[in-house]
Structure formats: C-alpha cells, structure tokens
C-alpha cells in the first residue's frame, strides 16, 4: 500500500514539476500586442519574453522576464512600461522570486513574491504610487505559480500524448489571490507566422475569475516542436478583444 502510494505521489510530482526541455537561457521572443477597436486591429504595444541566467553565491537560476511597452506613437496618450520577472529553477521552472513593476498611464504598482516551498507560503510586498508599502504573507496550494512562470510552464506539458479535448489544470497567483486556470488541447493546426509556416498545438485557456471571457475565445498557438513557443494568441477580456503575434524569435533551445 505504502509502495503504491509512493509511486502515485512520484508520478503526480513529476507531472506537476515537469523537466524543462523547452526553455533555455538566452531566448528572446518579441510580440506585437494589438487591440480591436471598432473591428479594426490596432497595434498597441511590444511585448518581449526573455530568459537569462542569474548567479548567486549558492545557485544559478533562470530569470524569466516579460516586458510590455506601448509603441512610441501612443506615448503621449497612454504610456505603458511594464516589467514582470520570475526567478526560477532552470531544471523544472519552479519559481523562487517574482516581481511585477507596472506603470500604465500613470497607474503604478509594484508587487514582489518570495516563495517558501517548504511551507507553501508566499511573503509578498506591495508598493503603490504614494510609496505606501504593504507586507502580507499567505498560503498557497502546492504547485501554484505566478503568471510569468506559468506562461513558461505551459511549454513543458507533453501535448504529444494528449488527446483532443483533454484538459490540464493549474493555479496562478495574481494580486495575492489564487486563480484556477485550465487549458484545453484543441488539436494541431498549421498557421502562418513571422518565422514561417508552423505546425502548432492549439489551446483554449479559461480561468475561474472573469478576466478571460467565454469558453473558446482565449486561444494560444504553440509550435508543435520541442521549443513549444507561443506564436499567436487571441484574447477576450472585459474591455474588449485583442491578439498577440510573434514578431521575432532568437536563441531557441532546440
């Protein structure tokens, strides 16, 4: 009985912390984020997803960095300078430190999570425009990750073995609250991208809150190779619809 339980736990932990065969340091993905205005897609911002190594005296971690900057033509109207970072274990992308520093049209917010995986707790620090700091510790479920490491962890799933319609659930911590999310594998599709025609895994994303609206309105296309990079995304959020298109990809692992 104990042996069976150990095997089950081992398999479960392996599925929760899959080995990283897709993401390496030095990868840089650049996207164009567009917003649908009265039926016309307007390019709003440039989004980059970059990885690099970070060395401390004890370990070498992987820094996952996501930035968003509005295109210069919008700067006089609404300027966005967002920085999201997650410092993770390079072997399985488990996060240890998460930072979010956003400045969106004058709205400023800083959020930091320090993970303690032994006790499943997060020590958070929030700072707003008036420099008012707020410290808060809270417990999380095992396997809960921040939004940045989740975006990279999606690339570790084994889609080859998934059948059409099968689902994967995960928990994201955002604004110090846990959100349940689910991806549904919709099959393979070949689409034209800026890096050529690519066979992709088509996924539908849904969440327990109302941020992502509709059942199959939020879609992601990941290349059906070992890198599984996001090449295209379609989103429906409360303020409208938009899309994310890959502009360039550098330093891919495979």
């Amino acid at each position, binding site marked *: 009985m104990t042996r069976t339980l150990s095997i089950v736990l081992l398999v479960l932990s392996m599925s929760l912390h899959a080995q990283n065969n897709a993401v390496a340091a030095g990868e840089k993905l650049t996207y*164009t984020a567009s917003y649908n*205005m*009265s039926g*016309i897609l*307007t*390019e709003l911002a*440039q989004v980059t997803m970059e990885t690099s190594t*970070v*060395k*401390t*005296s*004890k*370990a*070498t*971690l992987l*820094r996952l*960095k996501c*930035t968003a*900057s*509005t*295109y*210069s*033509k*919008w*700067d006089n*109207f609404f300027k966005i*300078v967002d*920085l999201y*970072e997650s*410092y993770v*274990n*390079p*072997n399985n992308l488990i996060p*240890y*430190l998460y*930072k979010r*520093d956003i*400045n969106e049209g004058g709205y400023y917010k800083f959020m*930091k999570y*320090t993970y303690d995986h*032994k006790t499943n707790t997060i020590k958070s620090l929030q700072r707003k425009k008036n420099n008012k700091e707020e410290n808060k510790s809270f417990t999380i479920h095992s396997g809960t990750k921040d939004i940045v490491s989740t975006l990279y962890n999606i690339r570790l799933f084994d889609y080859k073995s998934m059948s059409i319609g099968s689902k994967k659930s995960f928990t994201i911590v955002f604004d110090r609250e846990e959100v349940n999310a689910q991806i549904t594998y919709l099959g393979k599709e070949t689409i034209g991208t800026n890096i050529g025609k690519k066979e992709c895994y088509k996924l539908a994303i849904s969440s327990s809150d109302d941020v992502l609206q509709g059942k199959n309105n939020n879609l992601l296309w990941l290349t059906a190779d070992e890198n599984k990079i996001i090449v295209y995304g379609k989103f429906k959020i409360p303020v409208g619809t938009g899309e994310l298109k890959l502009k360039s990809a550098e330093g891919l692992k495979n």
Partner: protein
Amino acid sequence: MKRLFTILGMIAAILAVILSVLPLSNLAIFPAVAALLFVLIAFYLSKKSGQIKKIIQFTFLLAIISLAITTYKALFNTSKVTNNQELKEKEASSKKEAIKELEDLDLDDISIE
C-alpha cells in the same frame, strides 16, 4: 435634403481628417467613407437643381485627404518602441535587487547547479 447631406458630409470629413492625423488613423476609414457617400448624394442632388456649391467640393477634398493620410500611414508607418530608457533602467535595478534577495533565500536544499 441637399443641405442635410452637405452638413453630414462636412462633419464626417472633419472627423476623418482629425482621426487620420492621430495614432488612431485606422479608424478614420469609417468617417471618410461616410463623408464620401454623403458628399456624393449632396453632389447628385445639387446637380439636379443645377447649382453645385463650393463646400461640396471642399468636403470631397477633405475626405480624399483623410483617406490618403490613413492609407499612407497604414502602408509606410511601422510601429516602433523608441523611448525605452525607463524600462532598461528598471530592468537593471530590478536584477541587482533580485540577486541580493536571492542571496538571502534558503536555496541550499534545492539542487540547482
């Protein structure tokens, strides 16, 4: 009727010109096309009565100008991020702070090379 279409055409044409010079230039297509339609109806009605006013020609010119600006911007203007100094500074300082914070974390039990 002729006056109504002339006024509608003029309003739509002015709106199209304003939108075409803003970053939202793609949206100028809608009022520009509406202005062209209104001005053509006004032109047709004026022709019937035998008196074509200068304002109809002027409105037509405005609609064409807005369409030309919109088309030019859509074809030749590429979106760029030029002023990202703020972001670069933010990234560098955040990385420095993060390394300090990671030093304080208990990473001994984690097998990271």
